[in-house]
Protein backbone atom coordinates (compact mmCIF):
# COMPACT_ATOMS: atom_id res chain seq x y z
CA UNK A 1 0.00 0.00 0.00
CA UNK A 2 2.55 2.53 1.18
CA UNK A 3 5.07 1.48 -1.47
CA UNK A 4 2.54 1.80 -4.27
CA UNK A 5 1.54 5.22 -3.01
CA UNK A 6 5.18 6.32 -2.89
CA UNK A 7 5.78 4.91 -6.39
CA UNK A 8 2.78 6.82 -7.73
CA UNK A 9 3.99 10.04 -6.19
CA UNK A 10 7.53 9.56 -7.49
CA UNK A 11 6.19 8.76 -10.95
CA UNK A 12 4.12 11.94 -10.93
CA UNK A 13 7.06 14.07 -9.82
CA UNK A 14 9.32 12.37 -12.38
CA UNK A 15 6.89 13.06 -15.22
CA UNK A 16 6.52 16.67 -14.13
CA UNK A 17 10.28 17.14 -13.83
CA UNK A 18 10.94 15.45 -17.18
CA UNK A 19 8.38 17.63 -18.91
CA UNK A 20 9.75 20.90 -17.58
CA UNK A 21 13.45 19.90 -17.96
CA UNK A 22 12.99 18.66 -21.55
CA UNK A 23 12.17 22.14 -22.78
CA UNK A 24 8.94 20.97 -24.45
CA UNK A 25 7.13 23.45 -22.27
CA UNK A 26 8.71 26.83 -21.67
CA UNK A 27 10.36 26.84 -18.26
CA UNK A 28 8.57 30.01 -17.43
CA UNK A 29 5.23 28.24 -17.73
CA UNK A 30 6.13 24.96 -16.06
CA UNK A 31 8.72 25.26 -13.29
CA UNK A 32 10.49 22.14 -12.04
CA UNK A 33 9.40 20.55 -8.75
CA UNK A 34 12.63 21.74 -7.16
CA UNK A 35 11.99 25.35 -8.11
CA UNK A 36 8.49 25.12 -6.68
CA UNK A 37 9.79 23.64 -3.45
CA UNK A 38 12.44 26.36 -3.17
CA UNK A 39 9.84 29.05 -3.86
CA UNK A 40 7.47 27.57 -1.28
CA UNK A 41 10.18 27.53 1.39
CA UNK A 42 11.14 31.09 0.45
CA UNK A 43 7.54 32.29 0.73
CA UNK A 44 7.23 30.76 4.19
CA UNK A 45 9.36 33.57 5.59
CA UNK A 46 9.61 36.25 2.88
CA UNK A 47 6.59 38.36 1.92
CA UNK A 48 5.15 38.39 -1.59
CA UNK A 49 2.14 40.52 -2.50
CA UNK A 50 2.32 42.09 0.94
CA UNK A 51 2.51 39.02 3.15
CA UNK A 52 4.27 35.70 3.70
CA UNK A 53 2.55 32.47 2.69
CA UNK A 54 1.43 31.62 6.25
CA UNK A 55 -0.04 35.11 6.59
CA UNK A 56 -1.91 34.72 3.30
CA UNK A 57 -3.15 31.34 4.49
CA UNK A 58 -4.33 32.79 7.79
CA UNK A 59 -6.41 35.44 6.01
CA UNK A 60 -7.81 32.81 3.67
CA UNK A 61 -8.67 30.54 6.52
CA UNK A 62 -10.46 33.33 8.34
CA UNK A 63 -12.73 33.99 5.34
CA UNK A 64 -13.19 30.29 4.87
CA UNK A 65 -14.12 29.74 8.51
CA UNK A 66 -16.81 32.44 8.38
CA UNK A 67 -18.23 31.09 5.12
CA UNK A 68 -18.23 27.50 6.27
CA UNK A 69 -19.67 28.24 9.71
CA UNK A 70 -22.43 30.28 8.14
CA UNK A 71 -23.19 27.40 5.73
CA UNK A 72 -23.31 24.92 8.62
CA UNK A 73 -25.33 27.24 10.85
CA UNK A 74 -27.99 27.73 8.17
CA UNK A 75 -27.78 24.44 6.28
CA UNK A 76 -27.94 21.96 9.15
CA UNK A 77 -30.99 23.39 11.00
CA UNK A 78 -32.82 24.06 7.73
CA UNK A 79 -32.11 20.52 6.51
CA UNK A 80 -33.32 19.02 9.77
CA UNK A 81 -36.52 21.05 9.75
CA UNK A 82 -37.13 20.13 6.09
CA UNK A 83 -36.78 16.49 7.07
CA UNK A 84 -39.34 16.95 9.84
CA UNK A 85 -41.92 19.32 8.34
CA UNK A 86 -43.19 18.13 4.99
CA UNK A 87 -44.54 21.56 4.00
CA UNK A 88 -41.10 23.14 4.48
CA UNK A 89 -39.57 20.41 2.33
CA UNK A 90 -42.12 21.07 -0.42
CA UNK A 91 -41.49 24.79 -0.18
CA UNK A 92 -37.68 24.90 -0.11
CA UNK A 93 -36.68 21.95 -2.31
CA UNK A 94 -37.57 23.48 -5.74
CA UNK A 95 -35.61 26.67 -4.96
CA UNK A 96 -32.70 24.70 -3.56
CA UNK A 97 -32.57 22.27 -6.48
CA UNK A 98 -32.63 25.20 -8.87
CA UNK A 99 -29.64 26.85 -7.22
CA UNK A 100 -27.43 24.01 -6.06
CA UNK A 101 -25.92 23.15 -9.47
CA UNK A 102 -24.63 26.67 -9.98
CA UNK A 103 -20.88 26.48 -9.32
CA UNK A 104 -19.63 28.76 -6.53
CA UNK A 105 -17.41 30.62 -8.98
CA UNK A 106 -20.48 31.67 -10.95
CA UNK A 107 -21.41 33.89 -8.01
CA UNK A 108 -18.16 35.87 -8.31
CA UNK A 109 -19.61 38.73 -10.41
CA UNK A 110 -22.51 39.23 -8.04
CA UNK A 111 -20.33 38.85 -4.97
CA UNK A 112 -18.12 41.61 -6.36
CA UNK A 113 -21.08 43.84 -7.18
CA UNK A 114 -22.84 43.36 -3.88
CA UNK A 115 -19.90 43.35 -1.49
CA UNK A 116 -17.06 45.08 -3.39
CA UNK A 117 -13.70 43.93 -2.09
CA UNK A 118 -14.91 43.44 1.48
CA UNK A 119 -15.06 40.15 3.33
CA UNK A 120 -18.72 39.61 2.37
CA UNK A 121 -17.90 38.48 -1.18
CA UNK A 122 -15.56 35.60 -0.34
CA UNK A 123 -17.86 34.51 2.48
CA UNK A 124 -20.77 34.38 0.07
CA UNK A 125 -18.83 32.29 -2.46
CA UNK A 126 -17.47 29.87 0.12
CA UNK A 127 -20.96 29.66 1.58
CA UNK A 128 -22.41 28.71 -1.80
CA UNK A 129 -19.86 25.89 -2.06
CA UNK A 130 -20.28 24.52 1.46
CA UNK A 131 -24.01 25.01 1.91
CA UNK A 132 -25.57 22.28 -0.31
CA UNK A 133 -23.92 19.25 1.33
CA UNK A 134 -24.59 20.66 4.82
CA UNK A 135 -28.28 20.96 4.00
CA UNK A 136 -28.67 17.77 1.97
CA UNK A 137 -27.04 15.52 4.56
CA UNK A 138 -28.97 16.99 7.48
CA UNK A 139 -32.14 16.61 5.43
CA UNK A 140 -31.42 12.99 4.47
CA UNK A 141 -30.40 12.17 8.02
CA UNK A 142 -33.69 13.53 9.34
CA UNK A 143 -35.85 12.18 6.54
CA UNK A 144 -34.54 8.63 6.74
CA UNK A 145 -34.12 8.40 10.49
CA UNK A 146 -35.24 5.03 11.90
CA UNK A 147 -38.97 5.53 12.41
CA UNK A 148 -39.01 3.55 15.64
CA UNK A 149 -36.97 6.28 17.36
CA UNK A 150 -39.64 8.79 16.39
CA UNK A 151 -42.41 6.43 17.45
CA UNK A 152 -40.64 5.73 20.75
CA UNK A 153 -40.41 9.48 21.39
CA UNK A 154 -44.07 9.97 20.48
CA UNK A 155 -45.36 7.21 22.73
CA UNK A 156 -43.32 8.75 25.54
CA UNK A 157 -45.31 11.95 25.04
CA UNK A 158 -42.54 14.04 23.47
CA UNK A 159 -43.43 17.32 21.76
CA UNK A 160 -42.15 18.56 18.39
CA UNK A 161 -39.31 20.74 19.66
CA UNK A 162 -37.87 18.15 22.02
CA UNK A 163 -38.23 15.41 19.40
CA UNK A 164 -36.28 17.51 16.90
CA UNK A 165 -33.53 18.45 19.35
CA UNK A 166 -33.16 15.23 21.29
CA UNK A 167 -34.14 12.53 18.81
CA UNK A 168 -33.95 13.81 15.24
CA UNK A 169 -30.69 15.74 15.71
CA UNK A 170 -28.69 12.99 17.46
CA UNK A 171 -30.15 10.30 15.19
CA UNK A 172 -29.03 12.31 12.14
CA UNK A 173 -25.67 13.22 13.64
CA UNK A 174 -23.50 10.76 11.67
CA UNK A 175 -25.08 11.95 8.42
CA UNK A 176 -24.71 15.60 9.46
CA UNK A 177 -21.02 15.18 10.25
CA UNK A 178 -20.46 13.47 6.90
CA UNK A 179 -22.19 16.42 5.23
CA UNK A 180 -20.04 18.91 7.14
CA UNK A 181 -16.97 17.06 5.90
CA UNK A 182 -18.04 17.25 2.28
CA UNK A 183 -19.12 20.87 2.74
CA UNK A 184 -15.80 21.76 4.33
CA UNK A 185 -13.97 20.32 1.32
CA UNK A 186 -16.14 22.06 -1.27
CA UNK A 187 -15.97 25.35 0.65
CA UNK A 188 -12.20 25.21 0.69
CA UNK A 189 -12.15 24.40 -3.04
CA UNK A 190 -14.21 27.54 -3.67
CA UNK A 191 -11.60 29.62 -1.90
CA UNK A 192 -9.45 30.61 -4.89
CA UNK A 193 -12.51 31.75 -6.80
CA UNK A 194 -13.63 33.66 -3.76
CA UNK A 195 -10.29 35.41 -3.52
CA UNK A 196 -10.14 36.47 -7.15
CA UNK A 197 -12.03 39.54 -6.03
CA UNK A 198 -9.99 40.20 -2.92
CA UNK A 199 -7.63 43.13 -2.99
CA UNK A 200 -5.53 42.65 0.11
CA UNK A 201 -4.31 39.21 1.11
CA UNK A 202 -5.11 35.51 0.87
CA UNK A 203 -3.78 32.52 -1.02
CA UNK A 204 -6.02 33.23 -3.99
CA UNK A 205 -4.81 36.81 -4.07
CA UNK A 206 -1.21 35.57 -3.85
CA UNK A 207 -1.80 33.34 -6.85
CA UNK A 208 -3.39 36.12 -8.89
CA UNK A 209 -0.42 38.35 -8.12
CA UNK A 210 1.95 35.51 -8.99
CA UNK A 211 0.23 35.12 -12.34
CA UNK A 212 0.46 38.81 -13.24
CA UNK A 213 4.17 38.74 -12.36
CA UNK A 214 4.56 35.56 -14.42
CA UNK A 215 5.97 33.89 -11.33
CA UNK A 216 4.61 30.38 -11.87
CA UNK A 217 6.49 28.91 -8.89
CA UNK A 218 4.52 31.32 -6.70
CA UNK A 219 1.22 30.15 -8.21
CA UNK A 220 2.20 26.54 -7.61
CA UNK A 221 3.29 27.28 -4.06
CA UNK A 222 -0.23 28.62 -3.50
CA UNK A 223 -1.73 25.49 -5.02
CA UNK A 224 0.37 23.29 -2.78
CA UNK A 225 -0.66 25.28 0.29
CA UNK A 226 -4.33 24.96 -0.64
CA UNK A 227 -3.96 21.23 -1.22
CA UNK A 228 -2.19 20.65 2.07
CA UNK A 229 -4.57 22.71 4.18
CA UNK A 230 -7.55 21.06 2.47
CA UNK A 231 -6.09 17.69 3.38
CA UNK A 232 -5.59 18.80 6.99
CA UNK A 233 -9.19 20.00 7.23
CA UNK A 234 -10.43 16.68 5.90
CA UNK A 235 -8.23 14.67 8.27
CA UNK A 236 -9.46 16.73 11.23
CA UNK A 237 -13.12 16.22 10.30
CA UNK A 238 -12.51 12.52 9.68
CA UNK A 239 -11.31 12.34 13.28
CA UNK A 240 -14.50 14.01 14.45
CA UNK A 241 -16.55 11.57 12.37
CA UNK A 242 -14.68 8.56 13.74
CA UNK A 243 -15.12 9.88 17.28
CA UNK A 244 -18.88 10.23 16.78
CA UNK A 245 -19.13 6.71 15.40
CA UNK A 246 -17.08 5.26 18.24
CA UNK A 247 -19.26 6.93 20.85
CA UNK A 248 -22.30 5.39 19.20
CA UNK A 249 -20.74 1.96 19.19
CA UNK A 250 -20.98 1.86 15.41
CA UNK A 251 -17.31 1.39 14.68
Amino acid sequence: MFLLGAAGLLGFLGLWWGLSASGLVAKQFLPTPLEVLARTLYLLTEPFAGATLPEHLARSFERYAYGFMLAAAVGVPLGLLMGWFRWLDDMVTPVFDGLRFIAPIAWVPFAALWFGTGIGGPIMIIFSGAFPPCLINAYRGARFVDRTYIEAAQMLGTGNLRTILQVLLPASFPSIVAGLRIGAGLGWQSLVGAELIVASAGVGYLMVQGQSNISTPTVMAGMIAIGLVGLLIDVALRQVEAFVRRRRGLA
Partner: protein
Amino acid sequence: MSAIVFDNVGRRFERNGQSFPALEEVSLTVADKEFVALVGPSGCGKTTCLRMAAGFEMPSSGRVLVGGVPVHGPGPDRAVVFQQFALFPWKNVTDNIAFGLRNKGMLAAERQDRVAGIIKLMGLEGYETAFPHQLSGGMQQRVAIARAYVLEPEVLLMDEPFGALDAQTRIVMQEELVRIARINPRTVLFITHAVEEAVYLADRVAVMTRRPGRIKEILDVRSVREAEDWHRHTRVEDVMDLESFVHLRTHIWRSLREEKVDAEH
Protein backbone atom coordinates in the same frame (compact mmCIF):
# COMPACT_ATOMS: atom_id res chain seq x y z
CA MET B 1 -60.42 2.07 34.02
CA SER B 2 -58.52 1.58 30.82
CA ALA B 3 -59.79 -1.25 28.72
CA ILE B 4 -58.65 -1.57 25.10
CA VAL B 5 -61.58 -2.11 22.77
CA PHE B 6 -61.32 -3.13 19.12
CA ASP B 7 -64.80 -2.55 17.78
CA ASN B 8 -65.31 -4.23 14.41
CA VAL B 9 -61.95 -2.91 13.19
CA GLY B 10 -60.82 -3.21 9.58
CA ARG B 11 -57.58 -2.03 8.04
CA ARG B 12 -56.70 -1.86 4.37
CA PHE B 13 -53.35 -1.19 2.73
CA GLU B 14 -52.75 0.45 -0.61
CA ARG B 15 -50.19 -1.07 -2.91
CA ASN B 16 -49.69 -0.28 -6.61
CA GLY B 17 -53.02 1.49 -6.66
CA GLN B 18 -54.80 -1.56 -5.31
CA SER B 19 -56.32 -1.90 -1.90
CA PHE B 20 -55.65 -5.01 0.17
CA PRO B 21 -57.43 -5.95 3.38
CA ALA B 22 -55.00 -6.60 6.25
CA LEU B 23 -57.57 -6.90 9.02
CA GLU B 24 -61.30 -7.57 8.89
CA GLU B 25 -63.99 -7.40 11.56
CA VAL B 26 -61.61 -7.57 14.48
CA SER B 27 -63.51 -7.27 17.73
CA LEU B 28 -61.59 -7.79 20.94
CA THR B 29 -61.71 -6.29 24.39
CA VAL B 30 -58.76 -6.28 26.75
CA ALA B 31 -60.31 -5.58 30.14
CA ASP B 32 -58.77 -3.25 32.69
CA LYS B 33 -55.63 -4.86 34.20
CA GLU B 34 -56.02 -7.84 31.93
CA PHE B 35 -53.13 -9.42 30.01
CA VAL B 36 -54.15 -10.53 26.54
CA ALA B 37 -51.75 -12.19 24.12
CA LEU B 38 -52.42 -12.04 20.40
CA VAL B 39 -50.99 -14.94 18.38
CA GLY B 40 -51.31 -15.65 14.69
CA PRO B 41 -49.46 -16.63 11.55
CA SER B 42 -46.87 -14.09 10.40
CA GLY B 43 -48.36 -11.31 8.32
CA CYS B 44 -51.83 -11.74 9.84
CA GLY B 45 -51.91 -8.17 11.08
CA LYS B 46 -51.37 -8.67 14.79
CA THR B 47 -48.72 -5.96 14.93
CA THR B 48 -51.10 -3.67 13.03
CA CYS B 49 -53.63 -4.17 15.85
CA LEU B 50 -51.06 -3.08 18.39
CA ARG B 51 -49.97 -0.10 16.29
CA MET B 52 -53.58 1.06 16.07
CA ALA B 53 -53.95 0.86 19.85
CA ALA B 54 -50.68 2.82 20.14
CA GLY B 55 -51.99 5.47 17.73
CA PHE B 56 -49.25 4.95 15.13
CA GLU B 57 -51.85 3.81 12.59
CA MET B 58 -55.55 4.45 12.16
CA PRO B 59 -58.23 1.86 11.40
CA SER B 60 -59.86 1.98 7.97
CA SER B 61 -63.19 1.02 9.51
CA GLY B 62 -64.49 0.42 12.99
CA ARG B 63 -63.09 1.99 16.15
CA VAL B 64 -60.21 1.47 18.55
CA LEU B 65 -60.95 2.78 22.04
CA VAL B 66 -58.70 3.00 25.07
CA GLY B 67 -60.37 3.96 28.35
CA GLY B 68 -63.56 4.57 26.37
CA VAL B 69 -61.94 7.23 24.17
CA PRO B 70 -61.11 6.72 20.47
CA VAL B 71 -57.34 6.62 19.88
CA HIS B 72 -56.13 9.62 17.87
CA GLY B 73 -52.37 9.38 18.21
CA PRO B 74 -49.56 8.07 20.36
CA GLY B 75 -49.32 9.10 24.00
CA PRO B 76 -47.68 8.21 27.30
CA ASP B 77 -50.89 6.62 28.66
CA ARG B 78 -50.17 3.76 26.23
CA ALA B 79 -46.49 2.87 26.52
CA VAL B 80 -45.03 0.64 23.82
CA VAL B 81 -42.25 -1.95 24.08
CA PHE B 82 -40.82 -2.65 20.64
CA GLN B 83 -39.28 -5.87 19.38
CA GLN B 84 -36.09 -4.04 18.42
CA PHE B 85 -36.03 -2.18 21.77
CA ALA B 86 -35.90 1.28 20.10
CA LEU B 87 -33.72 2.68 22.86
CA PHE B 88 -32.01 5.98 22.09
CA PRO B 89 -28.42 4.89 21.40
CA TRP B 90 -27.03 8.34 22.26
CA LYS B 91 -28.49 8.26 25.77
CA ASN B 92 -27.37 6.12 28.66
CA VAL B 93 -29.64 3.77 30.62
CA THR B 94 -30.77 6.39 33.15
CA ASP B 95 -31.49 9.02 30.52
CA ASN B 96 -33.37 6.54 28.36
CA ILE B 97 -35.60 5.59 31.28
CA ALA B 98 -36.06 9.20 32.40
CA PHE B 99 -36.86 10.43 28.87
CA GLY B 100 -40.64 10.13 29.19
CA LEU B 101 -40.72 11.49 32.73
CA ARG B 102 -39.07 14.71 31.57
CA ASN B 103 -42.01 15.28 29.23
CA LYS B 104 -44.29 15.28 32.24
CA GLY B 105 -42.42 18.19 33.78
CA MET B 106 -41.75 16.16 36.89
CA LEU B 107 -39.42 17.60 39.54
CA ALA B 108 -35.85 16.31 39.27
CA ALA B 109 -35.90 14.74 42.74
CA GLU B 110 -39.08 12.80 42.10
CA ARG B 111 -37.84 11.77 38.69
CA GLN B 112 -34.64 10.39 40.18
CA ASP B 113 -36.63 8.45 42.77
CA ARG B 114 -38.87 6.92 40.15
CA VAL B 115 -35.95 5.99 37.89
CA ALA B 116 -33.96 4.50 40.78
CA GLY B 117 -37.01 2.47 41.80
CA ILE B 118 -37.60 1.00 38.36
CA ILE B 119 -33.87 0.32 37.86
CA LYS B 120 -33.98 -1.76 41.03
CA LEU B 121 -37.20 -3.51 40.02
CA MET B 122 -35.80 -4.44 36.61
CA GLY B 123 -32.43 -5.58 37.97
CA LEU B 124 -30.49 -2.87 36.16
CA GLU B 125 -28.38 -1.71 39.10
CA GLY B 126 -24.79 -1.04 38.11
CA TYR B 127 -25.76 -0.25 34.50
CA GLU B 128 -27.10 3.27 35.12
CA THR B 129 -24.47 5.02 33.01
CA ALA B 130 -24.02 2.31 30.37
CA PHE B 131 -25.01 3.02 26.78
CA PRO B 132 -27.41 0.64 24.98
CA HIS B 133 -24.75 -0.76 22.65
CA GLN B 134 -22.75 -1.86 25.69
CA LEU B 135 -25.63 -4.06 26.91
CA SER B 136 -26.81 -7.50 25.83
CA GLY B 137 -30.16 -7.83 24.08
CA GLY B 138 -31.84 -8.99 27.26
CA MET B 139 -30.53 -6.04 29.25
CA GLN B 140 -31.56 -3.64 26.49
CA GLN B 141 -35.09 -4.99 26.60
CA ARG B 142 -35.11 -4.57 30.39
CA VAL B 143 -34.28 -0.91 29.84
CA ALA B 144 -37.05 -0.61 27.24
CA ILE B 145 -39.57 -2.20 29.62
CA ALA B 146 -38.35 0.08 32.42
CA ARG B 147 -38.73 3.11 30.13
CA ALA B 148 -42.36 2.11 29.51
CA TYR B 149 -43.19 1.02 33.07
CA VAL B 150 -41.71 4.09 34.75
CA LEU B 151 -44.45 6.23 33.21
CA GLU B 152 -47.00 4.12 35.10
CA PRO B 153 -49.10 3.92 31.95
CA GLU B 154 -52.62 2.56 32.14
CA VAL B 155 -51.89 0.42 29.11
CA LEU B 156 -48.75 -1.46 28.03
CA LEU B 157 -48.43 -2.51 24.40
CA MET B 158 -45.74 -5.11 23.78
CA ASP B 159 -44.86 -6.02 20.21
CA GLU B 160 -42.98 -9.34 20.26
CA PRO B 161 -40.77 -7.90 22.98
CA PHE B 162 -38.76 -11.09 23.41
CA GLY B 163 -38.67 -12.02 19.73
CA ALA B 164 -35.11 -10.79 19.25
CA LEU B 165 -33.73 -12.57 22.33
CA ASP B 166 -32.06 -15.96 22.60
CA ALA B 167 -34.02 -18.83 24.15
CA GLN B 168 -32.42 -18.67 27.62
CA THR B 169 -32.73 -14.91 27.94
CA ARG B 170 -36.27 -15.14 26.70
CA ILE B 171 -37.25 -17.49 29.54
CA VAL B 172 -35.66 -15.23 32.15
CA MET B 173 -37.52 -12.25 30.72
CA GLN B 174 -40.82 -14.12 30.74
CA GLU B 175 -40.40 -14.91 34.43
CA GLU B 176 -39.42 -11.30 35.09
CA LEU B 177 -42.49 -10.02 33.31
CA VAL B 178 -44.77 -12.28 35.37
CA ARG B 179 -43.07 -11.06 38.54
CA ILE B 180 -43.46 -7.39 37.62
CA ALA B 181 -47.01 -7.85 36.40
CA ARG B 182 -47.90 -9.26 39.82
CA ILE B 183 -46.33 -6.33 41.66
CA ASN B 184 -47.81 -3.76 39.32
CA PRO B 185 -50.59 -5.05 37.07
CA ARG B 186 -51.42 -3.13 33.91
CA THR B 187 -53.71 -3.57 30.96
CA VAL B 188 -51.42 -5.41 28.54
CA LEU B 189 -51.73 -6.26 24.87
CA PHE B 190 -48.90 -8.63 24.03
CA ILE B 191 -48.06 -9.68 20.48
CA THR B 192 -46.13 -12.90 19.95
CA HIS B 193 -45.83 -15.81 17.59
CA ALA B 194 -44.52 -18.05 20.39
CA VAL B 195 -47.51 -20.07 21.58
CA GLU B 196 -45.94 -21.21 24.84
CA GLU B 197 -45.00 -17.66 25.72
CA ALA B 198 -48.58 -16.56 25.15
CA VAL B 199 -50.04 -19.34 27.33
CA TYR B 200 -47.46 -18.76 30.06
CA LEU B 201 -47.98 -15.01 30.30
CA ALA B 202 -51.54 -14.18 29.34
CA ASP B 203 -54.93 -14.19 31.03
CA ARG B 204 -56.48 -14.80 27.64
CA VAL B 205 -54.97 -15.75 24.30
CA ALA B 206 -56.59 -14.52 21.09
CA VAL B 207 -55.77 -16.56 18.00
CA MET B 208 -55.92 -14.82 14.64
CA THR B 209 -56.49 -16.19 11.18
CA ARG B 210 -54.10 -15.69 8.31
CA ARG B 211 -54.44 -12.52 6.26
CA PRO B 212 -56.84 -10.83 6.21
CA GLY B 213 -56.62 -11.25 9.96
CA ARG B 214 -59.69 -11.92 12.05
CA ILE B 215 -60.04 -13.17 15.59
CA LYS B 216 -60.46 -16.91 15.22
CA GLU B 217 -60.92 -17.89 18.83
CA ILE B 218 -60.18 -16.63 22.31
CA LEU B 219 -58.94 -18.97 25.02
CA ASP B 220 -59.36 -18.31 28.71
CA VAL B 221 -56.00 -19.28 30.17
CA ARG B 222 -56.54 -17.56 33.48
CA SER B 223 -59.34 -19.83 34.67
CA VAL B 224 -57.22 -22.87 33.86
CA ARG B 225 -54.18 -21.30 35.52
CA GLU B 226 -56.15 -20.61 38.70
CA ALA B 227 -57.99 -23.93 38.72
CA GLU B 228 -54.77 -25.88 38.25
CA ASP B 229 -52.77 -23.52 40.48
CA TRP B 230 -49.88 -22.87 38.03
CA HIS B 231 -48.61 -20.23 40.43
CA ARG B 232 -47.18 -22.82 42.78
CA HIS B 233 -44.41 -23.15 40.16
CA THR B 234 -42.09 -20.23 39.68
CA ARG B 235 -40.08 -21.68 36.80
CA VAL B 236 -41.26 -21.56 33.22
CA GLU B 237 -40.24 -25.14 32.45
CA ASP B 238 -42.24 -26.52 35.41
CA VAL B 239 -45.39 -24.72 34.31
CA MET B 240 -44.83 -25.85 30.73
CA ASP B 241 -44.74 -29.47 31.93
CA LEU B 242 -48.22 -29.34 33.44
CA GLU B 243 -50.86 -31.31 31.62
CA SER B 244 -53.28 -28.40 31.58
CA PHE B 245 -50.59 -26.18 30.04
CA VAL B 246 -49.71 -28.73 27.39
CA HIS B 247 -53.36 -29.18 26.56
CA LEU B 248 -53.90 -25.47 25.95
CA ARG B 249 -50.68 -25.09 24.03
CA THR B 250 -51.46 -28.02 21.74
CA HIS B 251 -54.92 -26.69 21.10
CA ILE B 252 -53.54 -23.34 19.95
CA TRP B 253 -50.87 -25.01 17.86
CA ARG B 254 -53.48 -27.02 16.02
CA SER B 255 -55.57 -23.93 15.54
CA LEU B 256 -52.60 -22.10 14.02
CA ARG B 257 -51.58 -25.06 11.89
CA GLU B 258 -55.01 -25.16 10.26
CA GLU B 259 -54.32 -21.60 9.20
CA LYS B 260 -50.98 -22.48 7.69
CA VAL B 261 -52.34 -25.49 5.81
CA ASP B 262 -55.12 -23.33 4.41
CA ALA B 263 -52.57 -20.79 3.34
CA GLU B 264 -50.74 -23.34 1.22
CA HIS B 265 -53.77 -24.09 -0.92
